[in-house]
């Protein structure tokens, strides 16, 4: 079972938040898997449920409630683990890289000490000297110049890119098999973004860790990911390998996302934003959640919720949740341009 099942299996995950206005279904039946050593990008607009999904993997959804579904990591149901077992997985087997390296480091503790603590948290027997050496090694690995001197510095003495490097060093410190990167480049300057992406790739190769890359930046996904999962209104609307999904999208939302993107390699006169805005998750529309904004929408979309199904005939598995995916297939050049 260990060998046949993917590293992480998310099955029909549902997470709800109770608010004064009612129950918000932040994640509403999302399913996808991650294989060992694979980089999976999860894309979607703000509020599509991608971050909540990631936090659910670590069992850290604040004030939210798991309303259904399972998350299995290495064959074990994470929802059934007690606090102590979960803590041995957090940081050691599943590590996270945060969006904002400015706030995710303790401002009054030196960067080196924070890495040392991350190491000693999971290996109490590790001596202080050994942990120190390892931390400096890690800083060097993530491309920190003069790592031994940087070890003794405080976060405020680091630039944004440097801090994100330190965060990545901390995340890979315990050799996790799954890295979750939540918008790892969003808070950074464009010039630094490329460096951090390169670094993520290096870190991934170094640790052989599967990576769950959460972002709203399709460029980042195209750059880094093997597979892509597109989320909309708390549901997975399309998934498949990056090239397939980006060259032949089979969901109108993915098409819309790609069309709204400026491109350097093609001459596009104007961008086409998706009309309307994401639905309120307090009262999601009946049927397909995308139908109010969808150019292909018709009566069936308003009543019947499309399930994720296999499309295309390529070798890579490509799934979409659209009743009329085949119509998109008929006009690929027009919509992807």
């Amino acid at each position, binding site marked *: 079972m260990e060998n046949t099942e993917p590293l992480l299996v998310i099955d029909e995950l549902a997470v709800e938040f109770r608010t004064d206005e009612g129950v918000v279904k932040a994640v509403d039946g999302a399913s996808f898997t991650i294989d060992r050593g694979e980089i999976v990008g999860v894309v979607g607009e703000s509020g599509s449920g991608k971050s909540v999904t990631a936090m659910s993997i670590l069992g850290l959804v604040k004030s939210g409630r798991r309303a259904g579904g399972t998350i299995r990591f290495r064959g074990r149901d994470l929802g059934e683990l007690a606090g102590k077992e979960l803590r041995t997985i957090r*940081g050691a087997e599943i*590590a996270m890289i945060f969006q904002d390296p400015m706030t*995710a480091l303790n401002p009054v503790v030196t960067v080196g000490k924070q890495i040392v603590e991350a190491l000693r948290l999971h290996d109490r027997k590790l001596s202080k000297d050994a942990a120190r050496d390892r931390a400096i090694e890690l800083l060097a690995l993530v491309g920190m110049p003069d790592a031994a001197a940087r070890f003794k510095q405080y976060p405020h003495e680091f630039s944004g890119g440097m801090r994100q490097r330190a965060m990545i060093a901390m995340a890979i410190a315990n050799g996790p098999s799954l890295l979750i990167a939540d918008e790892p480049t969003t808070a950074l300057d464009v010039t630094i973004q490329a460096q951090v992406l390169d670094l993520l790739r290096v870190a991934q190769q170094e640790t052989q860790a599967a990576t769950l890359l959460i972002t709203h930046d399709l460029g980042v996904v195209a750059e880094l990911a093997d597979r892509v999962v597109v989320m909309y209104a708390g549901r997975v609307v399309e998934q498949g390998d990056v090239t397939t999904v980006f060259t032949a999208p089979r969901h109108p939302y993915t098409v819309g996302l790609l069309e709204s993107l400026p491109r350097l390699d093609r001459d596009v006169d104007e961008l086409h934003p998706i009309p309307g805005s994401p639905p309120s998750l307090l009262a999601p529309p009946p049927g397909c959640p995308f139908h109010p904004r969808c150019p292909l929408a018709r009566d069936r979309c308003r009543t019947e919720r499309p399930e994720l199904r296999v499309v295309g005939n390529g070798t890579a598995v490509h799934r979409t949740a659209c009743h009329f995916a085949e119509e998109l297939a008929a006009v690929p050049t027009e919509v992807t341009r």
Partner: protein
Amino acid sequence: MSDLRPSLDTPEVAAAEEVVAAETTGTAPRSRRRSPAAMAVRRFRRNKIAVFGAVVLLLIVLLAVFAPLIAQQSPTAVDLGEIRQPPSSEHWLGTDASGRDVFARVVYAARVSLLVGIVAALLAVLFGTIVGAVAGLFGGWLDTVLMRTADMMLSFPPIVIIIVLAGILGPSIPILILSIAVTTWPTTARLVRGVTLAVREREYLHAARVAGASRGWLLRKHIVPAAMGQIVVVGTIAVAGAILSEAVLSFLGLGVQPPQASWGNMLNDAQSLTVIQSMPWLWLPPGLAIAATVLSVNFVGDGLRDAVDPRQSGRS
């Protein structure tokens, strides 16, 4: 170097920034580096009143430690032949109603007062820190129970509680320390809880949790260190309060028992008008000692507060 301006959201960061601005903004790692604690020390040393308080306090502590060397006479030796003698070359501050040397008693009493003050404050701060941090971090019903208990303690007049405790358990130094600690811990608990609530929502705490940290770990590595500066400040103020409480209780006969000397029970003698009017050597020295000690502790406390939080007013 895309960003040299972290947000000014904590005193620590603000303090850290101060140094960046004061020194250099160079990109190369600098050899001279100050930890937040080192910077607090530096700010403290710039505060003249605080340094003065610290020096006076140090003198009083030395007085207490080296009492046998400084006072040549025994603080408890009774000499009924020389009752209530005015100051002389033999008895620098005269003698009391039992013929004991007042100077020796004042010096030895410093030991008792400082012991009670420091131990009671330490106990109160330790307990208050644990209660406050646990209440803040765990929240829920535990928070409610702990903090309502603290509120109840704060709503009783402390002196009454102490008198009742001392009355039931009998007057002695351990009881004195305990009863002072019992009535002062809620202040620390409230403060630490406040800091905990603020730190709890910080992303780095979230990050630590994601890295597999238990609550105990979060308390030890992030929350208590974040509150430490303020804990030291309330601890110092608590020392002053405890010294005053000791004086009050001993004055009332509920604290340190004669023949052992304490500044409070020495003031017992000042209950009569004749003594106040005609024998100032009996009450002036212990009274001045209490005032000097408490004042210098408070100066130090104020200095520490300004040093720990650079945003507080009064900093040059």
